[in-house]
């Protein structure tokens, strides 16, 4: 059975529908990326799953969740901009979080010590007020507080968006490791991050779930090839001509290159090349590339 099953989850504010009847489920020890442009409803979805917001419609069901049982016990959550009781020390805050999550005093102390070591906050820094922590330290402390009670589902809202490349790498490595112990659901608008750690993708736009599946499945489904064309002079004048050809779905000029997406690769290639020969275009580059995840994303979002 799936760890979490979400059915027709909807969140409305007045007449504005921020999350619109989304349904999905996922199993144990998975890493799921929630992708979408800004304003797609990612944060609202995550907050609703974390129990911070109440769904207007729909249901969220955990495996083995009894009726009316508080699902917050199984969830760890890190918001995009976490803020702490900055008058506490890092260690105090972790112990406090642990106790709130119903760990005993002894357990909370033990887990806090373990985690502080794991996320690399030094003995000295542990006993300093959080107000003196750097952004990266706060982010790592944020993850530590989210996993202190060993939740089954860890929800991270844009966990690496605000970090520098080193911090970003550290967090991605940590996520890779945590995947062994729990399911991770995280949102991002950076596709590379999603590609790097996630097993499954959920694509959200305008509050609707427009696509979901494993990375491999989606790649196969949306695999398109792109023709890159360069000529000696300006490539612009050729754009209209090529777009009119059979087998071509869209064209785009990027600097000196014309990017051509196709509905039928073979047909498009034939048509373009024969026209090029007929009109004697001075082609310098004609190459066929597989579309990146980014292109796929743009296609799905724009449809």
């Amino acid at each position, binding site marked *: 059975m799936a760890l979490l099953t979400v059915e027709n989850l909807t969140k409305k504010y007045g007449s504005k529908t921020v999350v619109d009847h989304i349904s999905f489920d996922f199993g144990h020890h998975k890493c799921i990326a929630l992708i979408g442009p800004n304003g797609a409803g990612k944060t609202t979805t995550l907050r609703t799953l974390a129990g911070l917001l109440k769904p207007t419609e729909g249901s969220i069901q955990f495996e083995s969740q009894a009726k009316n049982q508080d699902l917050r016990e199984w969830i760890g959550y890190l918001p995009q901009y976490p803020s702490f009781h*900055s*008058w506490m020390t890092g260690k105090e805050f972790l112990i406090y979080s642990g106790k709130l999550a119903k760990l005993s005093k002894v357990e909370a102390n033990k887990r806090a010590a373990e985690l502080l070591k794991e996320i690399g906050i030094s003995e000295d820094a542990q006993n300093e007020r959080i107000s*003196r922590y750097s952004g990266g330290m706060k982010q790592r402390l944020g993850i530590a507080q989210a996993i202190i009670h060993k939740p089954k589902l860890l929800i991270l809202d844009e966990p690496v968006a605000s970090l520098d490349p080193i911090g970003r790498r550290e967090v991605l490595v940590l996520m890779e490791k945590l995947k062994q112990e729990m399911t991770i659901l995280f949102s991002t608008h950076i596709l590379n991050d999603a590609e790097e750690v996630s097993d499954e993708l959920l694509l959200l736009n305008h509050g609707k779930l427009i696509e979901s599946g494993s990375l491999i499945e989606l790649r196969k489904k949306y695999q398109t090839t792109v023709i890159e064309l360069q000529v000696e002079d300006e490539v612009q004048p050729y754009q209209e001509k090529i777009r009119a050809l059979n087998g071509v779905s869209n064209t785009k000029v990027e600097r000196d290159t014309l990017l051509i997406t196709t509905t039928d690769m073979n047909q498009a290639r034939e048509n373009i090349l024969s026209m090029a020969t007929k009109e004697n275009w001075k082609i310098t580059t004609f190459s066929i590339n597989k579309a990146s995840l980014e292109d796929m994303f743009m296609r799905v979002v724009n449809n």
Partner: protein
Amino acid sequence: MVDINWALIAPILIIEFILLLVAIVDLVKVKETNGPKWLWAIIIVLVSILGPVLYFIIGRRSR
């Protein structure tokens, strides 16, 4: 000039002084305040009782 029993007034002055001292020590230790620190130092020292209280209520950045 007039006979004021200073032994009676002294505790009040001491309380006022402690209030001022706690506010100043806190001001020095705290990282940031709402508004410039030096301004708060002046307010705490010059305005008796109300100065420190104002600092604690609005000057101190609570979280």
